[in-house]
């Protein structure tokens, strides 16, 4: 077991380590630092201690598997309602870079009933080889048969890295696959690269609502290294339909009778643009005052072809449905442009939108925390400013 050791004689009681601990595991006792059960052995305190009083003892694990047997970077090609999720293409773009550094192949993994079109697309976006399992049982995503197909392929062909989109489907699916294989899975990554020395995958992800970042590695006894990656973090790679790729097919070792779930119905949302896919989001907050006033937000959103977002306060007040909520207990979004109208910008709201490329805020209160993270801000009454914006965009866009 790992141990965090604090040398009592060296510790000066300077307290530098206390705020550095992301888990709140350090405190002062009789003038020296002490560690409690919350310690996660991340070593953040080791680096900040000015007198090197803290050491982390980690048990070295003997490598018992043949890591060399694991090759290639795989990307799960997710599709729903006949369309491939764009995050899958973004991952092929990023996967290409990882495969180039490792000197291996970039491969796609596709499941479904009839997936020929998806195979072509995966190849066009960079997959050199595509592993495919087709079966009527795989027509719609369900964890049971999809995980069965993936585990079957991964055990047989031994990829070194497998990437999934951190979507509803990807997060449901990857957790099952990783647990079945008993390997690591790093959620919601926003950065991936290869350690130049060890050639291991370094996975960087936000935690604590985006207040800290952590870089996570897999011990070499666990392969493949698997991550889910947030949509819209990596750019779409160029599409080239002249590319050729190899296709490897395996059958599904599961029958419909063995699947424990059945999809009865899909009820499509009423919004034309959904929050997660939106390039532009116009969001309303408490400043709107009532449900009716969301029409101000909707009108601007319509002109821009944007999705409508909302703060927690408006959802809790019943002004708009939960699907629209952005933030810690709602959805995490990453549009190109996020326009916050009448939203003060509590840290929980920021957790859901702070990585948007451009943030615009319109708020009466110049002290509103939202202005601390905005690209452009206007201090003013949203009921005056938002309609003016709408008219100006209409004019510029000729709509």
């Amino acid at each position, binding site marked *: 077991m790992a141990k965090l050791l604090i040398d009592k004689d060296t510790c000066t009681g300077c307290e530098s380590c206390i705020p550095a601990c992301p888990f709140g595991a350090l405190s002062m006792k009789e003038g020296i630092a002490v560690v409690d059960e919350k310690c996660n*052995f991340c070593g953040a305190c080791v680096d900040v201690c000015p007198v090197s009083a803290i050491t982390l003892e980690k048990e070295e694990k003997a490598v018992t598997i043949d890591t060399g047997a694991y090759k290639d970077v795989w990307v799960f090609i997710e599709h729903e309602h006949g369309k491939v999720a764009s995050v899958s293409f973004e991952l092929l773009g990023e996967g290409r870079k990882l495969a180039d550094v490792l000197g291996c192949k970039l491969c796609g993994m596709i499941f479904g009933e009839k997936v020929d079109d998806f195979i072509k697309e995966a190849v066009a976006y960079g997959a050199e080889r595509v592993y495919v399992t087709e079966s009527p049982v795989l027509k719609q995503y369900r964890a049971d048969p999809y*995980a069965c197909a993936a585990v079957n392929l991964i055990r047989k062909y031994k990829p070194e890295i497998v990437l999934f989109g951190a979507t509803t489907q990807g997060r449901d699916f990857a*957790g*099952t696959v990783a647990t079945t294989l008993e390997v690591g899975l790093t959620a919601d990554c926003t950065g991936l690269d290869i350690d130049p020395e060890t050639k291991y995958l370094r996975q960087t992800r936000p935690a*604590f609502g985006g207040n800290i970042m952590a870089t996570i590695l897999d011990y070499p006894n666990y392969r493949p290294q698997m991550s889910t990656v947030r949509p819209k973090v990596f750019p779409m790679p160029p599409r080239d339909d002249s590319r050729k790729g190899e296709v490897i097919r395996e059958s599904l070792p599961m029958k419909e009778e063995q699947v424990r*779930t059945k999809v009865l119905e899909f009820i499509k949302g009423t919004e034309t643009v959904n929050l997660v896919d939106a*390039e532009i989001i116009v969001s309303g907050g408490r400043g709107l005052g009532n449900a009716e006033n969301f029409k101000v937000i909707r009108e601007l959103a319509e002109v821009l072809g944007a999705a409508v977002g909302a703060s927690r306060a408006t959802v809790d007040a019943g002004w708009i449905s939960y699907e629209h909520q952005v933030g810690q207990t709602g959805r995490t979004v990453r549009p190109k442009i996020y326009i916050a109208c009448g939203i003060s910008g509590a840290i929980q709201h920021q957790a859901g939108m702070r990585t948007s490329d451009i943030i615009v805020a319109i708020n009466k209160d110049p002290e509103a925390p939202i*202005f601390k993270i905005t690209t452009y801000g206007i201090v003013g009454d949203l009921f005056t400013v938002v309609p003016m914006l709408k008219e100006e965009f209409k004019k*510029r866009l000729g709509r």
Partner: protein
Amino acid sequence: MKIAVCIKQVPDTTDVKINPETNTLIREGVQSITNPFDEFAVEEALLTKEKYGGEVHVITMGPPQAIEVLKNALAVGADKVYLVSDRAFAGADTLATAYTLAKTIEMVGGVDLVICGKQAIDGDTAQVGPGIATRLGIPQLTYVSKVKEIDLANKKIVVERMLEDGREVVQSTLPALITVVKDINEPRLPSLLGIKKAAKAQIPTLTAKDIPVDENRIGLKGSPTWVMKVFSPEARGGGEILKGELTEVVPLLVKKLMDSKFIK
């Protein structure tokens, strides 16, 4: 009907502030709370019990002080609570955590439905729910916004799942595991009597010796992943406040946004 709920104690990030000079988290005065999504999980278990009868068993894994979240669960009406706490469990990633919780649920025995929150607000992984289901060998229904029907006689459950672009109605066999989103219910507040009862309750601690676990699959030892480093994200400084008459400022903002080429 026997229901198990897994909950987690997390820092109340409302209070987490960043020291602008060192760019580190200031943790002083940060309260610990029940993970918000887990409150919906506990409430759904109580609602299910009220409708179909049965017992609600609430489990948490964490340091000794995590007992507080169990007291809250008792105060709102949980029948039995378990604190899974041992130095040997420390440093567990999602694989080891899911394993330990699954083993605890097996020990509770005869569970028809496991309920978890969609994700915890500190780690944000959403991996422990599917991990527990896989370890238990039961189906998982994640992102559930409504439990439509439970048919105990035929061992079936029908739920609505919240997806990116709509809702999916799914039927599953029981026992099953569901993870819930905020839309599913409104958690009740504890009664005064409930709070008094919870304060007096003796809560047992289950250690690695009490649960039939394989010691190679728990804690740091059973975790495939490790944190190489933690750091503060690049600070996103406040940008430009456009000042002046709105008749000038609004066209200026529109021009800046049009120049970004993101508007098509």
